[in-house]
């Protein structure tokens, strides 16, 4: 009886191992030596890409290929690294998927292209350029560099981005900005919502514009801003009592307002064609 049980267990184990081997994903690792100011470009149609800061002079790439219908073309020219997920005949969104985890020097510039994503980048201070079709984009803890995001319908979330030039173009994806400040923060949305929660600091220029998407901006009571807001066909609301300013900008109650707070250090423009605009005062506990 015991031997039969053991035989049965052995058969199960052998079958399981066979199944695992048959569907095993292919894991690849690449290591590149780079100098200061390296640039890394990744083109991955299907699958997530995650980039984090690590060792100063090295780029480490771990890629998991979901099938043999995709291969990775990688190249290096000096400190310029390129990675391309090359889809082979018969590949689809499942079999063509590659998962990338990349560790780069903190001052590296990163360019990511993806259809499905998601894309994640954190703790860098080089330039970050992302293009996505429907991939969700998550950027956090970036400083100093240029951040450019273009997406058709992916959700874009930026968290703790300081001293950066931020330019987001989103057709239908919502854009969420949490603690984002810098000399320039520009969001151009069509139907996606724009949600800003920060302090409009850095004596910067903030421009949040949309076609039909609503715009909600939350700032502290002591924000120092020169704000202009207008919606052609939507409602415009401000929780703040603004100091009037001399301007040629047409003020229409309920659909436009303009004014200053504090020393008006930063310029804030909130424009929407038919979305609702709400400048909210952050509640302090």
């Amino acid at each position: 009886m015991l031997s039969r049980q053991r035989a049965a267990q052995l058969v199960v184990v052998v079958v399981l191992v066979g199944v695992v081997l048959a569907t095993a994903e292919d894991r690849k690792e690449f290591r590149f030596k780079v100098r200061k100011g390296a640039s890394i470009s990744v083109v991955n149609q299907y699958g997530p890409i995650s980039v984090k800061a690590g060792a100063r002079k090295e780029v480490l790439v771990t890629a998991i290929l979901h099938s043999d219908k995709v291969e990775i073309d990688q190249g290096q020219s000096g400190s310029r690294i390129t990675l391309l997920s090359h889809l082979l005949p018969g590949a689809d969104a499942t079999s063509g998927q590659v998962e990338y985890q990349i560790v780069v020097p903190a001052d590296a510039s990163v360019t990511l292209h993806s259809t499905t994503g998601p894309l994640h980048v954190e703790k860098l201070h080089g330039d970050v350029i992302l293009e996505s079709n429907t991939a969700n984009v998550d950027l956090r803890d970036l400083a100093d560099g240029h951040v450019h995001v273009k997406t058709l319908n992916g959700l874009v979330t930026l968290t703790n981005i300081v001293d950066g030039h931020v330019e987001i173009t989103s057709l239908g994806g919502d854009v969420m900005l949490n603690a984002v400040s810098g000399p320039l923060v520009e969001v151009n949305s069509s139907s996606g919502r724009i949600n800003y929660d920060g302090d409009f600091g850095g004596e910067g220029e903030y421009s949040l514009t949309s076609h039909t998407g609503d715009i909600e901006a939350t700032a502290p009571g002591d924000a120092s801003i020169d704000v202009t807001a207008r919606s052609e066909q939507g409602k415009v609301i401000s929780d703040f009592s603004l100091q009037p300013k001399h301007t040629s900008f047409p003020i229409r109650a309920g659909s436009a307002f303009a004014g200053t707070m504090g020393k008006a250090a930063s310029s804030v423009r909130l424009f929407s064609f038919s979305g609702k605009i709400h400048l909210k005062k952050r509640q302090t506990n």
Partner: protein
Amino acid sequence: MTCAEFEQALPDASEGNREFEHEQHLRSCSACRSLVADLNAISQQARALQDCGDPSPRVWNSIEIALTREGIIRQPSRGELASVHRFPSRWSSAWLLPVAAALLVTAGVVRYERGPGQRVMPNAPTTTAQVASMRPEPSPDDRQLIESVALRSPAMKASYEANLQDVNSYIRDAEQSVKNNPNDEAAQQYLSNAYEQREMVYEMAEERSLP
């Protein structure tokens, strides 16, 4: 979100008042997109009908004659004339049912069109021609782009068509705004942004790595 859930939420989810989940589902589901488009068309037609006015008395007479012939309504007898103030029950149920159904449909369409707490736009179109003119026709370049996308990735065709429609609508609104106020900074910003969006859609579609 499933199609069933989307349809359940549809009456409260008019354009401009949709939750993020609704928008996401709409983008990914062509069946629900068609449904919303059909409802929008019905709503526009219903508004056009509101302007038609009441039919002439001859029309009502003809309907009454036809219903009498069918036996759905009948001329009251002498005895029934005595209680002329009482609404004949067969007649009321025969008439009220289609009238009630028509009212329900109209109310539902109007509610869907307006959404909760949404005011009617003063410049809202009232004719089919105006509605049709709101949706910009794809240009030859747009058609070529969509065909190119369809060849490489048929599943993305509907998505790019919708994206181009959005963008062209933005451009048209922005151009009108600039035309009305040529010196208006905001109007110029809209137009610049709208063209940037269009450029982005073309870029994404044409890049070899993306569908």
